[in-house]
């Protein structure tokens, strides 16, 4: 019998979550080019030797602003970028992740409440 240790998994995941970049990769995002942005970000994060987690995620609901990229870096607010193209993706890496400055355009804030948190 297999049995996952729920507590251990939670701990391990928490350690992973200090810094990450998420790309919305549902059909709506992919149709808008999210898979290209995902590949592009992966390539350039590696080039810059950045130790940051690149992840996929589902749809945040803001179909008008796909592709969506969310960035969490320690010491900075979590920021959601919309309509991300390759130029913006590069700026996200250079200015936001490396430089610690939020881009001055393309930032979205979606208001929802989540009763489970």
């Amino acid at each position, binding site marked *: 019998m297999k049995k996952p240790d729920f507590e251990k998994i939670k701990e391990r995941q928490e350690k992973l979550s200090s810094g990450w970049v998420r790309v919305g990769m*549902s059909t*709506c995002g992919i149709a808008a080019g999210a898979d290209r942005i995902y590949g592009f970000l992966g390539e350039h994060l590696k080039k810059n030797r950045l130790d940051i987690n690149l992840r996929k995620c589902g749809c945040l609901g803001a179909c008008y*602003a796909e592709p969506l990229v*969310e960035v969490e870096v320690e010491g900075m*607010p979590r920021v959601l970028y919309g309509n991300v193209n390759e130029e913006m993706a590069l700026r996200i890496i250079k200015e936001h992740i490396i430089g*610690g400055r939020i881009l001055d355009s393309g930032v*979205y*804030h979606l208001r929802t*409440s989540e009763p489970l948190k």
Partner: protein
Amino acid sequence: MSGIKAVFIADTGVKGPSRTEDFYAAFLSRVRERNLQDSVQLVRTEFSGIYDKGIFLRIWPGGVMYRDVPESRIDEIIERTIISGEVIEELRYTEKPKSLRVVLRNCGKIDPECIEEYIAAGGYGALNRILKDMSPEEVIEELKVSGLRGRGGGGFPTWMKWNFTRQAQGKEKFIICNADEGDPGAYMDRSILEGDPHSVIEGMITGGYASGAQNGYLYIRAEYPIAIERVRKAINQAYEYGLLGDDILGSGFSFHLGIRLGAGAFVCGEETALTASIEGKRGTPRPRPPYPSLRGLWDEPTIINNVETLANIPPIMERGGKWFSEIGTEKSAGTKVFALTGKVRRSGLIEVPMGTTLREIVYEIGGGLETGMELKAVQTGGPSGGVIPADHLDTPVDYEHLQDLGSIMGSGGMIVMDSSDCMIDVARFYLRFCVDESCGKCPPCRIGGYQLLMILNHIAKGSGTPEHIEKINEISNIMAKASLCGLGQTAPNPVFSTLKYFTEEYLEHINDKKCRSGKCSGLLSYRIDPDKCTRCSICFKKCPVNAVKGSREEGFTISSDECIKCGECFRVCRFDAVKVR
């Protein structure tokens, strides 16, 4: 890099030019005066879900929000809030967002291809506890307290379905997730499967435990390749972790899950057609009763639930039925996911508590109409639903209210329409869909639907007669009463409801041969105004069927017999000389 502060700035007004730039510039100069530009970042933002609150600020850290901020208070905000961390109460915005994510709680937050992220977000925790501490009866009781009703359209209490199957006798039992989502414009279920497949799987295992089903299928339409791939991965991971298979988490309970693909026939979303399709038979409905909960797949007791229904199960089991029942309205508990589309500024996937009004959805979440035109109606329920006219916008969205207005909740399509949308055209669109998708098994739907469509075609073409209105009512009534399955029973709804609320528009088409929205091309005629025409001849050259006659010397006219009403002449004329009627 650590310890930065940020101010997110947006103009939430929806009319006139944005004032964000001016405010941003003013704020920046005040920040520079204090030499804070390295530690305080100003960010121009688009806020979604906040409109008409003037210049809006969100300040990090802390996340305090200010509304209707005048430039005169910038200094105060910098001194008190940014530097000293104080909140300025009279500017503060505290309203709760209208949207509430229960079903979509993980969508966009976790990696759907990674079971660890689901577990870290609390996933499978409820299942773990259920298998340890709860009897199947207790699970069903919890569900009863929650008040959850089916999200696939019918709104049947989920606990009753589960209980019927639990009490039914059978060699074996099944649970099926209906992911055939075929309504035009709807993609809620696809997004749930793509964004959080494990929550649906956890819901299914819970249903299996509660009802005694040991096998489950996800019936997914083949047009959803990404959803299928993610569900497949999720099932494999769940097997690896011992959450599917024999003796789950050492409880003695065994449950197996597989995927079956639907070939894209809308009628296969109907539960008896769906089970026939899984059995390898032709996907056509059969009379009910017996209902699938007693005799479904392979004639055995079978629960059939919609994707969204199942995704609601884990949070209910985690937080308790009472918590869930307090969201939404008394008879319609919980939330509903909608695909908000059409002429709305912010289209997309939204989730709101039941009982939220259409006005709140369209204006406070969707940001109003993109076109600046007047809202005419909101369509809900897709081809089985109807339109709700603008003067009923304050209707709370729940099962009962929508039904009272002649529409239905349906699976969650919501299309916002403005005055450029013709109601006859809308009705015709949905009816044609149902006629195309009718399986042809029963005459009321097969023949009635076609006849109804022919009548609408006449009306749209200008050959409608007043008697047609009577005929519409007669045929619709027969279809609603005598059709075998929901497809035929509800197919007249879009016609019924547009006729009910927009009778005038029908009569205009019939008597005046006029379509006020200019959508019914059969009713249009094009004419060249000789006073405005400069004889440039561009329409003469561009008309694809050479219906523009004449020459630069004599002038031009349009032959209405040959004109196919494509509108090309109207579009190319630079002198406003082509007139449409």
